[in-house]
């Protein structure tokens, strides 16, 4: 399945907090990231990939393209997807994640805008976010080949040639030859990846000091 990257604009994160942010202590546990797609027509979402950075749970809401004169609403397409099984520990904290169309709760065929809601309930982390966010849509389908009619629908009205005595059945022979050909093609295509095992360069292993880079 081919996929195509959709150029997107990721807005800066907005923290959701109750009360006055300057005087209240503690860090926000919910962040919202808006993703817009300027200059792109409403598309069918195929895949979302990103690198996690200490986000524990992810919800995604999507705004669809609707016919004119009907207001488009936000619909939740992913609810509380768990990225870190234990929010207090490092498991899953910096993993690369992919989310696919079939995991979404609603139809994502005419996406206008996305909203990612990140939650990190543990107070132990100083910050959390998602990085390297990439959205993919369905790539262009390869043009379907049109076979000439006689190739795809062979005429079956011909009489089969009379079988000569003592010779094997031609259809059996052709299938065996096909199998052999396939096997030889496979053997030809494979190659080993063994290393040679030499550590020196042309017999010389006279070294400088170890390098730090």
């Amino acid at each position, binding site marked *: 399945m081919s996929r195509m990257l959709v150029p997107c604009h990721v807005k800066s994160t907005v923290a959701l907090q109750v009360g006055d942010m300057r005087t209240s202590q503690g860090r926000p546990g919910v962040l919202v990231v808006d993703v817009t797609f300027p200059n792109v027509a409403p598309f069918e979402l195929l895949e979302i*990939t990103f*690198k996690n*950075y*200490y986000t524990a749970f992810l919800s995604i809401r999507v705004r669809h393209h609707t016919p004119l004169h009907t207001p488009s609403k936000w619909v939740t397409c992913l609810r509380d997807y768990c990225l870190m*099984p*234990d929010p*207090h*520990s*490092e*498991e899953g*904290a*910096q*993993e*690369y*994640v*992919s989310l*696919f169309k*079939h995991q979404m709760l609603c139809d994502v065929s005419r996406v206008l805008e996305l909203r990612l809601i990140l939650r990190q309930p543990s*107070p*132990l*982390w*100083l*910050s*959390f976010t998602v990085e*390297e966010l*990439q959205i993919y849509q369905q790539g262009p389908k390869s043009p379907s080949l049109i076979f000439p009619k006689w190739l795809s629908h062979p005429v079956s009205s011909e009489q089969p040639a009379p079988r000569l005595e003592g010779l094997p059945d031609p259809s*059996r022979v052709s*299938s*065996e030859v096909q*199998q*052999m050909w396939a*096997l030889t093609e496979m053997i030809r295509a*494979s*190659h*080993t*990846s*063994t*290393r040679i*095992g*030499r*550590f*020196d*360069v042309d017999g*010389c*292993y*006279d*070294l*400088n*000091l*170890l*390098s*730090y*880079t």
Partner: protein
Amino acid sequence: MLQEESDLSLIIAQIVQKLKGSNLYAQLERQAWACLQRPEVRLESLKEDIKEFFKISGWEKKLQNAVYSELNVYPLPSHPSAPPEHLKEPLVYMRKAQGSWEKRILKSLNSMCTELSIPLARKRPVGEQKELLNKWNEMGTDEPDLSLFRPVYAPKDFLEVLINLRNPNYENGDSLSFRTHLGLIQVPLKVKDIPELKECFVELGLSTGQLGIDDSTQVPPELFENEHVRIGQKVLLQQDSAAAQQYIRQGSPTALRAELWALILNISSQPEDILYYEQLKTNVIQHDLLVDSLIYKDVKLTASNDDYYFVFEDYLYQVLLCFSRDTSVLGHFAYNSASPPKSYIRGKLGLEEYAVFYPPNGVIPFHGFSMYVAPLCFLYHEPYKLYQIFREMYVRFFFRLHSISSHPSGIVSLCLLFETLLQTYLPQLFYHLREIGAQPLRISFKWMVRAFSGYLATDQLLLLWDRILGYNSLEILAVLAAAVFAFRAVNLMEVTSLAAAEAVLADLSTLKVMPLLQIFLFATVT
């Protein structure tokens, strides 16, 4: 469903790619060609008939063992966007810490090189080569002057690095909170607690027979031992790696242990392997490395002084010197957070065609490294077999004990697991030791880094290493360390200084490993 299928095909493709370069692939090909002569193989069902032949002749089992071995050793394929460093170690701050630690080691090695005016590598003159070849089997009789050499680092230096490991995104404030780490390790890795460990090590439970407990002289052998030996012989006959790994969780009979370990590690000594070892021996004879002196020094300081292992001194040189020339070890750096040190041929600094790894296997030995090999000398007597087993044990397990990573079997997780177990299940002891300035990890770290080699009696150590192989994890080392503290808790509560605590725990040679583990996991009232 789609995702799982594509994951599975990715794993299959990865394993096939790995196995294609192996000896087994060439052998299977040869066998397939040879079996075309057989009458029962017909052209129209060629694929099925060859598969049937493999099943009957035992080659399918060998392939199964190879696939099982790959699954055990290599991590699953990661996300397509993940760079290779991510596979080595997913957490960025740990990668950075490992990088700085490596830089320190390189600086230390470089300064030793310049101070002593000894080159990192030197081609031996022909006379010296002949001399070394003659004394290959008795290198221990050599008494070179090693007084100027010092080990590159010792476990306690590494412990200081781990103590200072910090996650920059973690609340490391001074105020005590519900998650303050009272031990030495300050990173919040996920470790198992006793209920999870009980599930994981279920075969060590009270109602399952164990070698190390149920083979003692008071227990009649008909109850467990005879049957267990019989099953072991059957497993060896079947030559099935997965079955052997399951079997050895209950311990291995001494007579079968060498073969069982070879089966689990998927080592079969083919002529190619013997040739490979001879090639490494030639490399040792041709080039003299600075690392060789470090190995000599380490063997003289540790194994030669040990009552159990000094007889194997010559074997240790034969294995470790060849190990440093073995470039196939470089493959394990794909999943090890460490990276091999690099250098350039003299005069060609910066030119990539003249870049080499130093030492050729990328592993710089530290103080106590030879203790990883010493216990294996009891099991294997041909140098090439001993070598193969050690190399496989290193690239599966031992490398994790001296590199900084977040892996559950990595040394950082083991330290945190030890401290958490002690703090949760022996809180009074933990508090007392902390108060007198004797953080428990300072005492148990050296046990875990060496996988208890040199601290336990050899038969007990081999029973412990049976379980490491059986569970494919090093977590049992942390559990044993906690169990030892639990066993000596009464004495430890009475000490008033770190030195006194060390004295209580100085001698572990009388301990019986399996009863300690069983009591700690399954019989302690919490």
